[in-house]
């Protein structure tokens, strides 16, 4: 091959790859743009002040009320409660798999956990409604049929494999020599795990946490099925709530007119969701960059 031809090929490949990369960038820009565009129209009709301060969300009522805070509270409630399940259990599982389990045990447990991650979220939704909720109601009788706790437990179980698997990857990538150094100083397994491996894998663990929380914030199916449709500022986990995603899917399923104010609320709520997730991701990037160890 002549040098010229070779250079031409190189260039061609580069152009094609740049094209591919631009497709995803353009899509993102397109989504963000349409989101913001509809949101701007929304705010030309509804006061942005009301949107962020009113504590009543009733966009389809007469008179309507557009306070997004109840939806944010609902979302945060799900995010926090589900994190209480997924983060400790996920990290515990990861520590067990990477530091305690023999290779045989790990070979059995890892695929099972990964299987858990492959279950569609709608299945978790029905699992919450038909199993977790009755269970909760059997010892907490004043639990609503639709409630935040049941949905949160399901979301927590759903995101647990992600925390476990990513944290385990991070912990397994800590060089064995460091582990041996700690054992040689007379550490127990638990000390090695907690004082050496977890801190050394901190950036990976932190990013798995943020991802799990982001997943919980964006989770739609489970909350739509099990958490209820009651926008509420209440932080009572046993009561019915509504999340931002729950509201959006509700509207999408109803027969709303394109261009109507109800239609635009979906975009406004979507924008809020987008900003929250964006902040989370930026925060994660910052934490990871600050704690990255290079071996």
């Amino acid at each position, binding site marked *: 091959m002549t040098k010229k031809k070779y250079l031409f090929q190189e260039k061609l490949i580069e152009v094609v790859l740049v094209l591919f990369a631009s497709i995803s960038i353009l899509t993102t820009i397109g989504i963000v743009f349409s989101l913001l565009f509809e949101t701007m129209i929304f705010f030309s009709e509804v006061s942005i002040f009301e949107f962020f301060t009113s504590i009543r969300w009733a966009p389809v009522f007469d008179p309507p009320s557009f306070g997004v805070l109840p939806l944010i509270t609902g979302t945060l409630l799900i995010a926090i409660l589900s994190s209480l399940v997924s983060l400790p259990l996920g990290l515990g599982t990861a520590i067990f798999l990477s530091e305690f389990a023999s290779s045989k045990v790990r070979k059995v447990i890892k695929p099972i956990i990964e299987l858990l991650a492959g279950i569609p979220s709608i299945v978790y939704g029905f699992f919450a409604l038909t199993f977790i909720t009755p269970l909760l109601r059997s010892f907490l009788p004043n639990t609503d049929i639709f409630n935040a706790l049941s949905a949160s437990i399901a979301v927590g179980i759903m995101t647990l494999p992600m925390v476990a698997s990513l944290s385990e990857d991070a912990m397994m990538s800590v060089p064995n020599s460091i582990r041996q150094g700690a054992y*040689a100083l*007379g550490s127990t397994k638990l000390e090695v795990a907690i004082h050496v491996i977890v801190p050394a894998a901190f950036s990976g663990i932190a990013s798995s946490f943020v991802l799990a929380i982001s997943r919980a914030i964006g989770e739609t199916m489970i909350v739509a099925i099990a958490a209820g449709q009651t926008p509420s500022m209440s932080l009572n986990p046993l009561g019915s709530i509504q999340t931002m995603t729950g509201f959006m899917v509700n509207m999408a399923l109803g027969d709303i007119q394109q261009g109507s104010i109800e239609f635009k609320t979906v975009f406004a709520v979507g924008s809020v969701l987008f900003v929250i997730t964006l902040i989370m991701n930026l925060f994660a990037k910052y934490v990871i960059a600050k704690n990255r160890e290079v071996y």
Partner: protein
Amino acid sequence: MTVKVKVENLNFYYGDFQALKNINIEIHENKITALIGPSGCGKSTFIKTIDRMYDLIEDTRADGHILFDEMDILKSDVDVVELRKRIGMVFQKPNPFPKSISENVLYAVKRHGDVNKVAFNEIVENSLRKASLWDEVKSKLHQSAFSLSGGQQQRLCIARTLATKPEVILMDEPTSALDPIATSKIEELLQELKKEYTVIIVTHSMQQAARISDYTGFFLNGELIEFGNTKDIFTNPKDKRTEDYITGRYG
């Protein structure tokens, strides 16, 4: 002269593979014992038996006796965590923790002792001084251990081991990743350390063994071929195979 570690009829297996065959050796207190031999002959395996580091490798087994003072290290009821505080280990490649220099030194102390904060500073300084690293790092104790050079990292690992006040220090080719200057620093250091500790060092460098050790053991294919005074081993080996090895005929 006191025998610190007495090994009797030691056999060691990785699964079905026998890596050590009927080893008998006496390690003397406050002396440096060097272990030499071609790659794969079982030197690392041998020192891993002395602090039971082989427990970390699945499907391994040792039989025989290793008497450390009066305790048989190989007994299943031995508290290995306690044992490893008394028998420290320095590895071939420096392996500091991804923590600050002082945290590295204090790691074991913080886990085990109920020492107060005031004592912490003292321990850091003493351990680093003993590892002759203090002057180089005293102004940056809170920087990451990874900011040190390889030779400094290795001395930090030695300091970290000294902080647990071990009686025996096992070293597996501690200078093989270091340049000649860093190596000679550690060799000098060893002469200081043997006043307080018993040292067993694996080395591929015949010159190093001859320079620094009091006793030398020559391993071949999992067997201890010859063991004795370093001077005798290097000037007057009894076994033909030892002679071949130290004169470089094994490659």
